[in-house]
Structure formats: structure tokens, C-alpha cells
């Protein structure tokens, strides 16, 4: 609790939820929704940028979490990390298939990706106070890179290409940004 003011579930409650899901207790999904939907929906929405699609992805993710729960290994990481990755992957697949549908041949990487990045802030309305603090602690270059890596599914080398900066700089900025974030947790 003291080491982590934000992440919604204390370890003991998380273990209990994991046990219930491992025991295929369907009612645990309601608890799961109440605990995690805001965090997951926030991430999904930030990636797909449309409410109806975010709802579809969240629903798809919950079904996938239930069906694939046997593959979750608590020794490898927290439940929250695992479900976040499922949501991110599904959301990124969603925007990629959307790009694919509209025709990746005619839309250049610059147009489609830049358009998406610019579209984000208008519809984006975070409610957590934590964000304010983070905005002040991360310098814009760090935040831009973390957002591209985390919310837009870029790899580090794609970020380097897109921003026209050396890969080493991307790696350093990403690492520094993550260091700043872990300091904020404490």
C-alpha cells in the first residue's frame, strides 16, 4: 500500500482474485470489472480513440482474460501487468486492422500516424490526479516517446525513424522516463 498509492488492488486482494479466477468462479469477473475497468478502459480508449470500439475491446479482453487465465503465471508478474498487456495488444491489433482496412497502401506512415497523434488530446479526458503530477515530472520529449511506445504500438526503432532521432537516444529517453515514473510511485 505504502509503496504504491495508485495500483488499484493490494497484493492480498489480488491473490484472492487470482485464486477465484483459477477456480473458474464466474462471479469473480464482476469483481474484476469493478476493480480494473477504469484502468483498462483508460488505456484502451487512449489507443483506439473511439468509445464504441473501446467498449468492444474491453469486452473482448475480459473474455480473453477468462479463457486464457490458465496461462497467467503469478511468479512472472502481477495480474495487473498481465491484463494490461492483453488489453494493449488487442487495442493495437484493432488500430492496425483498421489502418489495414482503409488501405495501408495509400495512407503513408506519416499521414496516418501523425493524424492519430493529433486526434488524441481533444477526446481525451483523464480523471486521475496522478496524470497532472506526471505531466510536470516528465519532460515533453520523454512523454512523447513513452506515449508512442505505450499507447501507439511503436517499437523503439520505429520511434527513432518517425522522430528522426538516433535509436540510442530513444532507448535512453525511454529508460529515463520509466525511471522517473518509478520514482513517482514511491
Amino acid at each position, binding site marked *: 500500500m505504502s509503496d504504491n498509492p*495508485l495500483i488499484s488492488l493490494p497484493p492480498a486482494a489480488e491473490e484472492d482474485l487470482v485464486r477465484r479466477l483459477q477456480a473458474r468462479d464466474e462471479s469473480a469477473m464482476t469483481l474484476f470489472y469493478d476493480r480494473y475497468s477504469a484502468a483498462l478502459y483508460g488505456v484502451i480508449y487512449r489507443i483506439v480513440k473511439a468509445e464504441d470500439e473501446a*467498449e468492444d475491446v474491453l469486452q473482448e479482453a475480459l473474455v480473453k482474460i477468462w479463457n486464457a487465465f490458465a496461462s497467467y503465471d503469478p511468479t*512472472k508478474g502481477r495480474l495487473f501487468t498481465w491484463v494490461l498487456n492483453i488489453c494493449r495488444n488487442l487495442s493495437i491489433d484493432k488500430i492496425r486492422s483498421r*489502418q489495414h482496412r482503409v488501405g495501408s497502401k495509400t495512407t503513408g506512415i506519416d499521414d496516418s500516424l501523425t493524424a492519430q497523434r493529433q486526434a488524441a488530446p481533444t477526446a481525451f479526458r483523464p480523471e486521475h490526479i496522478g496524470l497532472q503530477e506526471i505531466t510536470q515530472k516528465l519532460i515533453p520529449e520523454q512523454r512523447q516517446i513513452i506515449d508512442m511506445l*505505450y499507447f501507439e504500438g511503436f517499437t523503439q526503432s520505429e520511434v527513432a525513424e518517425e522522430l528522426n532521432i538516433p535509436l540510442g537516444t530513444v532507448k535512453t529517453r525511454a529508460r529515463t522516463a520509466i525511471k522517473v515514473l*518509478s520514482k513517482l510511485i514511491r
Partner: protein
Amino acid sequence: MENIQDYIESGILEQYALGELSAAEQAAVEAQAASHPEVRAELAQVQAALGFYAEAHAITPPAAMRERVLANVMAQIAAPAARPGTTLRADVDALTSAPVAAAAPAASRAAAEAVIRPMASAPVATPSGRSNWAVAASVALLLSLGANLLLYSNWKNANAQVVALQNDQARFAQTSQVVERKLGDLRQENEVLRNDEFRAVALAGTKTAPTAKARVFFNVATHKVYVDVRSLPALPAGKQYQLWALDKGKPIDAGVLTAATATGEGLQHMKDIASAQTFAMTVEPTGGSVGPTLSTMTVVGNI
């Protein structure tokens, strides 16, 4: 075994946490984490930091969504268990075509039981014939059930493969766009280098940076200016190199160098300059200054 600190600082743990690695690379990272507590701790910290970032972006979904999503999820996660039972019931009903309402088996009963019981009320001649029929019917049903499962899993696999291929294709399209853009840049650089109208101006290091070296290509007719860095000292955070043209001793801003140009990655097109006799570079705060900070002059050269 390589140095663990180097491994941690290589950035691979960040790539792992961001989901950039292939399955084999992921397994390698997991193996490192399993055998080195420092790697494990660092990885947990990276994951916690990203989780924290995610949570800072939390948005409570609309209230009406809760019922909708949970109802759909419950229906979907309950479905695979219920479906074989109902299909079986329908098949059995069709087979017997006799009134079996009284003997209707509970949905939770075992499949074999459900198959055999309705047959008892069917008009069949001898007890031995009846049991043969029952066995044959159960075998047929089980076979069809097995075939359905097989087809379903094949279909799921095919579907997953299509999605994977689509992702590959989208990624490939993105990569070729990047390559095309790079080629365009190179072509443009080549035109500058081969054009006789451009005059190459060598900029040599000053006392502050004796080994620094750069070139400016200046086209007197079109006023176009390109800069090419050979070697410049690394910059402190928040600083950028800025190019100046000196025209009769008066400094004119020719624009700031991107980080890539400053490390010598290629030519950069700068601001047009009408007339100049000298070019020089200074270190300025990110974004550039209105006037040059002369004490930071790094390279200078006359036309």
C-alpha cells in the same frame, strides 16, 4: 556470462515490458529474470512504472457500459459449457421422435445418460436391438461432437493466422514507407553534393573544440544552405547547435541542427541565406536564440 548491469542497462527489459520482443527473446529475458534477482527486481520496477502510467490515464467507463459488457462477457464465458448439452438434446429429440417430456434429462446430466434414456421410450422391437441402437447413436453423436470440436479449433487457428498475417503485412507496409522516405532524403543529399552551384565551406573547430569539424553547402544563386557535420562535441541536456551566417559582420540565424544532424547522420536543409562571407556554429538553448552566444562558438569558416 555478460555483465548483469550492462544487461539491465541495454534497454531490453523495457522492450520486454512494452511487448516488443519475439517469443524467443521473451523467453530469454524470463530466463535471466529467473536466475538473477537484480534483473527480476528491475523488471518488476519497469512493469510497475508502466502500470502506474497506465493507471494515471484511468477513465471510468460510462455507467451503462457495466451491465452491457458484463452481460455479454458472462454469456460468452458460459457458452462453451452449455452448448454441447443443448446440441445433444436436439439430436436426441430428432432421433427418437417419441414423446419424451416425462423423461427429459436435466441439462447437467452426463451426455451418455441423456442419449440412452430417451431411447427407452422409443418403439423398438427387441431389448438387444435397442441397446445396439443406443450404442450406435451414442457413437455417432460422440464422433460428430469430436469432428465439430476439431473443425472449431481449426477454424480458430486459421483465424488467428489470418490476423497474424495481416499484422505482418501492415508492418511491412510501414517499413517500406520508411525506406522510401530515407531513399528520398539520400537522393536529395546527392543532388546537393553533385551540384556545382553549391559551394562547400569548411568549418573548423575553435579553441573550445579543436577537433570539431563541419561543412556548409551554400548556393549563392538560390540562397539554399545545407549543413553536414563531421564531428561535434556532445551537447548537454537542453542545448542545441545553431548555425549562423555572418554577412558583413552581422550574424543571421540559419536555423538549429537536429540531434541527428549534430551526430553526423546526414545533410540538413537550413534556412535560406541571401548573402554571407562566414558561417559559424554556437551552442544555444533548445529551440535556438535570437543572437549568437559567442563564447560557445564551436566551429567557424570563411567562404
